[in-house]
């Protein structure tokens, strides 16, 4: 109801109706994710549910691929905070995507130790191979190419993170093979971290 009987509420544009994120399809956690969420919030004091906003957003992103306005609304309602509170967080942290990304997000570390070991050439090889520039997604929605900052494995430079999986000591010819492999085998082509792999051997 409007505060003036003759004037309809929200008939014209107002700043508060500005939309930052893609509205997206309607969003609610799947029952499994809802159960995960319910378990997660128990890690924090009952009056501090807001603490669970990062894990809650990860659940939304894993479910839907990226964060939409509807996902933000859902998370905000579950945590009892405002949409603006959640938006604030989403826009700050680089690991949340507010636009659709490819099935595989290729993230090349570009910081010093990787750079002096040829990270630029690795990016160049990926650009040539997939035909997209850093920051772009290919038309088939398979690959997104990103440059990221130090991943904390500089002894295994250059490092390329594909979704959550790490590929270390990558040379330009390796990433070309990696792309072919991802196309052919999908997620099966994702490797583990060097130390884990080494431990298994």
């Amino acid at each position, binding site marked *: 109801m409007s505060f003036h009987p003759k004037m309809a509420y929200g008939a014209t544009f107002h700043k508060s109706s500005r939309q930052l994120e893609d509205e997206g399809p309607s969003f609610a956690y799947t029952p499994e994710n809802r159960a995960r969420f319910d378990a997660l919030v128990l*890690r924090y*004091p009952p009056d*501090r549910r*807001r*603490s*669970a*906003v*990062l*894990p809650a*957003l*990860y659940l939304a992103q894993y479910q839907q691929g990226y964060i939409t306005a509807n996902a933000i609304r859902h998370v905000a309602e579950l*945590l009892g*905070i405002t949409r603006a*509170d959640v938006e*604030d*967080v989403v826009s*700050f*942290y*680089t*690991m*949340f995507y507010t636009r659709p990304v490819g099935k595989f997000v290729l993230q090349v570390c*570009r*910081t*010093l*130790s990787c*750079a*002096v*070991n*040829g990270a*630029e*050439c690795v*990016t*160049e090889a990926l*650009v040539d191979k997939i035909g997209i*520039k*850093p*920051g772009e997604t290919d038309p088939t929605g398979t690959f997104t190419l990103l*440059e*990221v*900052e*130090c*991943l*904390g*494995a*500089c*002894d*295994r*430079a250059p490092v390329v*993170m594909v979704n*959550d*999986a*790490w590929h270390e000591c990558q040379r330009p010819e390796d990433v070309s093979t990696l792309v072919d492999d991802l196309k052919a085998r999908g997620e099966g082509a994702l490797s*583990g*971290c060097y*130390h*884990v792999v*080494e*431990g*298994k*051997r």
Partner: protein
Amino acid sequence: MEPILTKYVREPNSFTLDFYLQHEGYDALKLALTKKPDEIIEMVKASGLRGRGGAGFPTGMKWQFVDKKSSPRYIACNADESEPGTFKDHLLMERNPHLLIEGCAIGCYAIGAKVAYIYIRGEFFHVQQILEKAIDEAYARGFLGKNIQGSGFDCDVYIHRGAGAYEAGEETALLESLEGKRAQPRNKPPFPAVVGLYDKPTAVNNVETLCNVPLIVAKGPAWYSALGPEKNGGPKLYCISGHVKRPGVYEASMHITLRELIEGHAGGVRDGHTLKAVIPGGSSVPILLPDQLDTQASFDGIQKAGSLLGSAAIVVLDETTCMVWLAENLLHFYRHESCGKCTPCREGTDWLHQILRRIERGEGQMKDLDLLQSVADNIAGKTLCAFGDAAATPVLTTLKHFRHEYEAHVNEGRCTLPATWRARQPVGTTH
């Protein structure tokens, strides 16, 4: 020195509880629970353990400052590990996760906390899974949870996953992030030891720091401090990367010199190349030159040489590295990671990056050098957190030692040292 923290990291099962228990695992926790909490703090104080996260502040003192009148209290373990060149916590958590869990539990007992949050960077997802499994094992065998080993002491350890923000490693920004907000630091004082997580007293400790605590409890502070030079005791993990033959994490006593680390452990610079510069403690600290290699790689030794040990991330650079390019590369990092809370850092890092890019491309002028100096001087020491100083450092240190390279760029209108490991065309983005 024989490795202690990383002794078993190459063993296939080093991360399992069974393996850990077979190698004296959790003995320190059992021993600690027979002592009074204050005794533990005294032991840590006597050991001289200094924080391994970057600042080198004595851990025992930090724990003593935790306000014991207010409760609940918390431990926040800093596993954000984002300082360029640093990858030691990564190895510890991946290959020796129970050591960290044991350290968290002893830390909680000492300061009277019941909950420890491990704030792990979002990119370490594979590490997080190993750590989560280890925590589950510890609960199942009564090393975490209620009434640990029948002592009446309760302790929970939870993992909190970050989402890509270097600044979340700053202790108060970490607490903000844990509270579900942007990772932007708070004003200090009050320090976290008094007003920390949820406004309660909190000890923020680095992963490697907490991993040292079980050693101190098990073997005693005297043994511990005798491992290194005075005030620089205990084992230390060094991360060596860049242009070396064998990059990796090396554990040593802080008696060791940079030369022994770089030429001994890491095998020296690549064949056919010569050393140009060393960054001894992560991207945020001043550069050391080849004639300073005999510096002792301790907190105090490196400080005496004019730099800082920081996170012990040693980045080795050979003669193919253009120092203007290096500053630009690092300022790209700082510009991207500035949390934006204070103006000199938010705007200044962008300005520095723009000017550096201009010079590196050969479009700079001589007056840009003074501009760089002036912008950097106006960031350092004028910001809310230490990020500002860190961001100014790559510019100030390269200007100081390699001014001639900057001048050559301006005079010749191009990068005078284009390296073969760089791309043929610029591929970088400016996001």
